[in-house]
């Protein structure tokens, strides 16, 4: 099985190496992103298989060829286009060791694949859908139009089944263990991207430093698997969308706003959107906020106020267009299956108009999964009040971005339980530990980010004390601050690696 899974991951990752590297830059942590990009393209291929015809694998090859031709054209014309691709090698012994530490952390839980356990949903839906994707347009089209064959969730996005079906293509037949192994490795990759994002937070100037950041990243990756429990390795998709969405938050809303970070956030958010419906709703929130952050509000000038109002309107238009363009791939599947009349099974009979008695039990059940919330809220509050200057120097986004995502996630989850159709007790008992996974992982990630900021504060004090002090106050941060200020990202400047 190990060889088949490794071949499947290589098949997903390698054909898209060049386009992905052009998009997000050259570094070892891209190795975590590549399989996710491949799975994303496999999901888009499934969309084409259903909408147009043929097989997922045929479309996958076609899309990979197209993406590579596009990448080669950009490479060939980069000077004429005035684009600095920023492909300077960033491979050092330090980055290699950091990569290996994270790789070990995300690989460690995979040893549980030896149990070949298949979760209930894996049998009930994900494997069935993977077989349909593998079977080609006819089978998939029939199954989508006869959802009684798969009971519920016929509208669920196709990324996990597409990844599993790639494993079937590699093996040349339907093999059930691919239904657990491929999603589990994708879980590891998503947590690897998240951990790499935390290392980037830690190695920003004035932050904690790369090595402690590596330990923090590895810890959060391990915690992700711990939060998911058996769902991390038995073929469920919840950890995949949660970890991808949290990684999108880190790259799009925490790290300095550059086009490369936005590209990683876009890929991760699209992976979340094409994995589960919950992932789609959160991805839309994250992409919208990332677009708002990426296109800054125009500065005040001496010009008349009506001009400013016009510029503000143009800015919001740019933000909306950027968010819409980024959301398109993630929305593609949802639009297609709804055009076929397939309903979200949670709201198949419309919104529950008398949700009396559902709010209390919902909040109570979610609270049992999120005991961390008040502690992290307190730490974040202390950080915002006392350490905000340090956070600014590091160049990180405001804490409010992350908490906006957290609140949106909690509101969407509560709303789904309260206004959804299913019997509440059964629904909560079978799913609340999975639906709160994103929020729990985001809380641990926020904790790690504040530890980076606090560590940077202490490290900076220590280093200043250790130095001889001929000047009353040395100004080492000035250059850093000017560099880390969030500019209006133009293509020429912001394609540079941001560290």
């Amino acid at each position, binding site marked *: 099985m190990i060889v088949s899974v490794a071949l499947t991951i290589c098949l997903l990752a390698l054909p898209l190496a060049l386009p992905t590297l052009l998009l997000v830059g050259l570094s070892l942590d891209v190795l975590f992103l590549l399989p996710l990009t491949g799975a994303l393209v496999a999901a888009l291929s499934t969309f084409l298989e259903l909408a147009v015809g043929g097989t997922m694998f045929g479309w996958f090859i076609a899309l990979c060829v197209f993406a590579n031709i596009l990448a080669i054209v950009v490479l060939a014309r980069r000077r004429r286009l005035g684009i600095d691709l920023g492909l300077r090698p960033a491979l050092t012994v330090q980055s290699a060791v950091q990569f290996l530490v994270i790789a070990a952390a995300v690989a*460690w839980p995979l040893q*549980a694949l*030896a*149990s*070949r*356990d*298949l979760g*209930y949903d894996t*049998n*009930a*839906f994900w494997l*069935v859908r993977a*077989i349909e994707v*593998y079977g080609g347009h006819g089978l998939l089209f029939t199954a989508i139009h*006869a959802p009684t*064959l*798969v*009971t519920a969730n016929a509208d669920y996005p196709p990324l996990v089944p597409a990844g599993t079906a790639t494993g079937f293509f590699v093996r040349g037949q339907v093999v*059930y263990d691919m239904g657990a192994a491929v999603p589990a490795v994708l879980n590891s990759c998503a947590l690897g991207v998240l951990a790499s994002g935390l290392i980037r937070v830690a190695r920003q100037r004035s932050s904690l430093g790369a090595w402690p950041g590596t330990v923090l990243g590895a*810890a*959060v990756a391990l*915690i*992700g*698997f*711990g*939060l998911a*429990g*058996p769902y991390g390795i038995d073929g469920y998709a919840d950890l995949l969308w949660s970890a991808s969405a949290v990684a999108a938050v880190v790259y799009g809303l925490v790290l300095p*706003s550059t086009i490369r970070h936005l590209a990683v956030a876009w890929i991760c958010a699209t992976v979340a959107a094409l994995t589960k419906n919950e992932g789609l709703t959160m991805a839309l929130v994250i992409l919208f906020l990332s677009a708002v*952050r990426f296109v*800054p509000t125009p500065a005040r000038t001496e010009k008349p106020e009506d001009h400013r109002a016009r510029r503000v309107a143009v800015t919001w238009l740019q933000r909306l267009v950027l968010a819409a363009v980024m959301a398109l791939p993630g929305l593609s599947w949802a639009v297609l299956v709804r055009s076929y009349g397939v309903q979200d099974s949670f709201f198949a009979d419309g919104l529950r108009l008398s949700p009396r008695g559902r709010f209390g039990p919902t909040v109570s059940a979610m609270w049992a999964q999120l005991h961390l919330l008040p502690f992290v809220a307190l*730490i974040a509050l*202390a*950080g915002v009040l006392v*350490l905000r*200057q340090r956070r*600014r*120097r590091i*160049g*990180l986004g405001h804490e409010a*971005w992350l908490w906006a995502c957290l609140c949106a996630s909690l509101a969407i989850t509560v709303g789904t339980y309260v206004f959804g159709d299913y019997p509440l007790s059964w629904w909560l008992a079978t799913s609340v530990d999975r639906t709160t996974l994103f929020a729990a992982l985001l809380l*641990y990630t926020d904790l*790690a980010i*504040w*530890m980076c*900021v*606090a*560590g940077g*504060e*202490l490290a900076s*004090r220590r280093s200043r004390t250790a130095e001889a002090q001929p000047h*009353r*106050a040395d*100004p080492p*941060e*000035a250059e850093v*601050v*000017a560099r880390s*200020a*969030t500019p209006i990202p133009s293509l020429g400047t912001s394609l540079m690696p941001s560290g």
Partner: protein
Amino acid sequence: MLGETRPVAAAVSNDASPRPDARVDAGEPARSSWRRVVAVLVLCSGLGLMVPAVVHSLRNTASLTSGPSISAGNGYYDQVTCYRATIEREVRKDARVYLGGSSPDEQLLVEASEMWATILPTPARAQYRISIVHGHGSCNGTSLVIGRP
């Protein structure tokens, strides 16, 4: 804009002459100590919350790789693969089948039949009726009953 970083170079200077914000600077050591205390508290609280979570994760992996877990997982895996093998052995390729049983069983049979047989929602035109019998049999204590509808 949120997250925007503004220059703070003006706050640090080698110039010893009095400045308008001298009163602010006088309070800087106290604020600096306060920041240090908060930073230490954040680090300690963070460690206090993260270390148990990491330990929980490692224990979770250890539990999932324990003998009973592996045995249970493999047993269930053998059961569901046995269903597919049985259907491929005893049902003609592309035959029309009707799957009996309650929801979980029916799901397992859909999984085992897809790409081999055509599943019908009613038994009227089916060539085979397939259901799962629990309690005995070669598929991990269960077996398939395959017959005419």
